[in-house]
């Protein structure tokens, strides 16, 4: 497991967005747990991701992957433990931290009645982009949707919506990119272009954290893999060989341990 880098003392005052992005080069979970009454979604999870790498969180359904991403995105607060973004925790000026986070969720998070262009324009304005109109245009052309830019999103296919949703998530060029099962429902060519896009982001120094249970699509993409099982982090290790092997080597052991019945 990678040790988190040593940080300068945290500053409690308001940081300007520029200042934040300079030292926002790491996402660290420090003994994070999240409970819902007696249901334990995440338990004592500690790991970190640095700039310029793609970390994949693997695990079966119900392992807590979506909860982990929601916590990283500041949509949920941990029941115990801390999450650090560079030098800063979430409680220090949440808005500034959010300015550097982009999330692609299960759902497309787009308004079906608005056109692709309007959706991008709205979110660009909301996320504080300098020139929302031109930014929306660039995003449309990058995802090869300029032709369909004035059609309402409800007319798009699943793959097109996913591409547009990705553009929406990245419209403000965030430092931390979170993706929840991004390969679901994509065909091979779309998966490939998504993987290329993510590698491009990685090479530009972004932190990319994604969850998946589709090993084939994520093959060759991930730098490190975090294995989640029943809310607990089994291991975080660099990727060598196939993802399937990583998964089986750890979960194979876990499947044999006796679970205390509740």
């Amino acid at each position, binding site marked *: 497991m990678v040790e988190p880098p040593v940080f300068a003392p945290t500053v409690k005052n308001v940081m300007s967005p520029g200042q934040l992005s300079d030292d926002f080069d790491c996402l660290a979970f420090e003994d994070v747990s999240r409970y819902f009454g007696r249901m334990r979604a995440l338990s*004592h999870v500690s790991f970190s991701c640095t700039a310029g790498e793609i970390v994949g969180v693997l695990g079966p359904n119900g392992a807590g992957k979506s909860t982990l991403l929601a916590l990283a995105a500041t949509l949920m607060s941990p029941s115990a433990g801390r999450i650090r973004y560079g030098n800063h925790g979430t409680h220090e000026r949440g808005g500034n931290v959010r300015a550097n986070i982009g999330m692609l969720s299960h759902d497309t998070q787009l308004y079906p009645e608005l056109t692709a262009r309007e959706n991008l324009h709205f979110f660009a304005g909301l996320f504080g982009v300098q020139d929302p109109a031109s930014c929306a245009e660039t995003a449309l052309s990058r995802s090869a949707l300029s032709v369909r830019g004035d059609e309402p999103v409800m007319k798009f296919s699943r793959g097109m919506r996913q591409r547009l949703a990705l553009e929406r998530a990245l419209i403000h060029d965030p430092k931390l990119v979170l993706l929840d099962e991004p390969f679901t429902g994509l065909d091979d060519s779309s998966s490939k272009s998504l993987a290329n896009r993510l590698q491009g982001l990685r090479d530009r120094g972004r932190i990319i954290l994604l969850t998946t249970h589709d090993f084939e699509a994520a093959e060759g993409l991930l730098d490190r893999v975090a294995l989640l099982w029943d809310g607990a982090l089994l291991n975080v290790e660099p990727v060598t060989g196939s993802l399937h092997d990583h998964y089986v080597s750890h979960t194979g052991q876990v499947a044999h341990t006796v679970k205390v019945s*509740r």
Partner: protein
Amino acid sequence: MIPSRWFPAITVMAMVFFAGAPLMIARAPYESTMGLVQKIFYFHVPAWIAMFSGAFVCGISSGIYLFKGKKVADHLAVAAAELTVLFGLIGLVTGPLWARKAWGLWWQWDARLTSALILWMIFVAYQLLRQYGGPGSDKLAAGMALFGMANVPFVYWSVNVWRTIHPTTNVVPTLVPGMSEAFLWCSVAFVLIFLLTLSARVKLESHRAAIDRLYLSLDD
């Protein structure tokens, strides 16, 4: 809340007060127009006092829970809300019983009665939210309680103005000296019962939270 070692002492005190209440009530003078029926007053008004205390405690602790996130405040809010509904129910049942015998009607739209009813309904809604709102409803209910508290002056003012347009017979008689002792006695009894049940209920909630924590630590 009340520290555990005071529990026995306060329980005994409450029992004494309740035992003595019938004597005090019997000794109090009869009210001129209503006779025996007026004596419901000694249960009715203290029940409302307990209800308003509960509403107040719930509102304050909800605010603390919402903004500071202290779990203890949430336990207190839950307990206080339940007691508000309970004592409010006592008040709402004794009120019409009294009104029926005294003035021949079951219900009267006077300002105090209506405001109290609305406040009671707000806390019934709080209970419904906690019961059926699913996970996370503790925070939402705290918000509801805050809004309920903020609402009280508006409800009272608007119902008051509404009713002065249609004047009705006055509800609460003036307190004759002989009555005030009995009234004070019964009020103290109800307040003690309120504090006792509140503490017991808060304890129950803390135990429940402790059991949840035990379950969670089981797999660690």
